[in-house]
């Protein structure tokens, strides 16, 4: 029984152009699943569909999202917000834009607990301090009073991780959480996310374009192209032998510093044409049986 079950999810731009094409993804409790694809593949839109934060021009036109046994579409907007707020959290990509620059860090962690989940301010503050300590922030009491600009990128990302785990969600959506960071900081942050995920037994939907990161953090993965699921597999199998020509080409195009003068193979045009063909065929089928 999976914790999150996305079934045949179709998202369209203004009810017309498909952005996600009948995407089905299951995430079991405690599972770490990567959503992989190039820009425009729709990987972030899956997370946004679950969180209910799709851009205005986009709308869900088909399929179901079942969270912890409940179909989100069947709930009232208020109940849906409450369920999502209690069970799902987000670690965003850019830690600078995700934090309000004119407010201290502390309230930005505690407000969610107080406003949405109805904790007392005191309990929320104690919880925030405890979490900052857990994400290895030195002197958490001082950091609670700091403004975001006073902290480094790595520190800000740690704060967002603490904030995501604050309400003990069952599922965290991490949207390219380390893309803006240096490799050395990225390593620390990825370690931290894995460590926290294991300790809390949280399921993780990890959106990324970096297959290197996938191989370090995730157990299962879904490869997307143009809003269509190209491959759904576990990480070890994928790196041993990718199951689709497009995913194989993607892996071959990923640079590896251990390959001496290994020439990079761009994704061949023939592969792109074939997968575009597949998408077109899929669309015809979708129109045939709406």
């Amino acid at each position, binding site marked *: 029984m999976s914790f999150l079950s996305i079934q045949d999810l179709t998202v369209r731009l203004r009810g017309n152009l498909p952005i996600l094409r009948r995407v089905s993804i299951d995430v079991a409790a405690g599972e770490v699943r990567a959503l992989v694809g190039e820009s425009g593949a729709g990987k972030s839109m899956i997370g946004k569909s679950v969180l209910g934060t799709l851009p205005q021009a986009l709308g869900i036109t088909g399929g179901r999202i079942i969270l912890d046994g409940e179909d989100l579409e069947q709930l009232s907007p208020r109940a849906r917000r409450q369920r999502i707020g209690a069970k799902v959290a987000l670690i965003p990509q850019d830690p600078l834009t995700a934090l309000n620059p004119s407010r201290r860090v502390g309230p930005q962690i505690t407000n969610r607990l107080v406003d949405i989940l109805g904790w007392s301010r005191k309990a929320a503050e104690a919880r925030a301090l405890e979490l900052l300590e857990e994400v290895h922030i030195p002197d958490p009491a001082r950091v609670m009073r700091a403004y975001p600009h006073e902290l480094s990128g790595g520190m800000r990302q740690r704060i967002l991780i603490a904030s995501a785990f604050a309400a003990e969600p069952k599922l965290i959506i991490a949207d390219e959480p380390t893309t803006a960071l240096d490799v050395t900081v990225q390593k620390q942050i990825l370690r931290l996310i894995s460590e926290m995920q294991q300790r809390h037994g949280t399921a993780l939907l990890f959106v990324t*374009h970096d297959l*290197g990161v996938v191989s370090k953090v995730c157990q299962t993965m879904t490869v997307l192209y143009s809003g269509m699921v190209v491959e759904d597999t576990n990480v070890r199998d994928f790196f041993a032998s990718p199951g689709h020509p497009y995913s194989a080409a993607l892996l071959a195009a990923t640079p590896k510093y*251990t390959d001496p003068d290994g020439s990079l193979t761009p994704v061949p045009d023939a592969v792109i044409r074939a997968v575009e063909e597949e998408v077109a065929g899929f669309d015809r089928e979708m129109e045939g049986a709406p």
Partner: protein
Amino acid sequence: MSDVIYDVKDLRLSFPDMSRKPILGPAPRIEILKGLTFQIPKGEVLGIVGGSGSGKSTLGRALIRLIEPDSGQIDFEGTDITHMGEDELRPLRRRFQMIFQDPLSSLNPRRRVAGIIAGPLRLQGLEGIDTRVNEALDMVGLPRSFASRYPHELSGGQRQRVGIARAIALSPDFILADEIVSGLDVSSQAQVLNLLEELVRELGLTLAFISHDLSVIRRLCSRILVLYQGEIVENAATADLFAAPAAPYTQELLSAIPLPDPDQVWA
């Protein structure tokens, strides 16, 4: 002498730190480059690596004199350009060009591709601009019909090709490429890197390639400069650096890269 394109000695550069400026009086200065000495031989593809804040972009901008260093000396083909004025620099600018990180913000959205590539050619007072624009498009593998398109009509990889075309249209001796593939998907990344490699070989260019990504650097560069907090911690041939990284920072950098391989020991 003649086979060195850049000779840099004890280069120092600082910026005012406005966040700590007292109400009265000048802001304290924050040192970005702390005495860098190195040479770039003709025909070399030099990789410049470092974390954010290491000064790699500042170094690049000082090399092509978009900013003026505090002290030290930069010789470009035997000419001291360290403190040269803009008028003196202009004729030289044709010989060192830059490709920028983000093609969307470095290409004027209101001009067509032809106008973008022709701009620097006109400023340099060159003849036969249309021919040169077409040749540049051919060299970067874009159809000539793209000349009449606007940047927003192109994909990320195509835009970056326009940036490259603009730089090579002037037939420069030296090109600075600052993180030019970090915004691209892996598929277009590979294409742009392959193109750059081809151009360097065919046109006999000298290239400084700034990147935070050692995988990309290894693929393209013959020599690598590792910067850490404004200082050169390692300057080695590519093969040597990967075989036996000498500086602790280089070792840390290498071991932090997640390889697309679940069996990598990533401790």
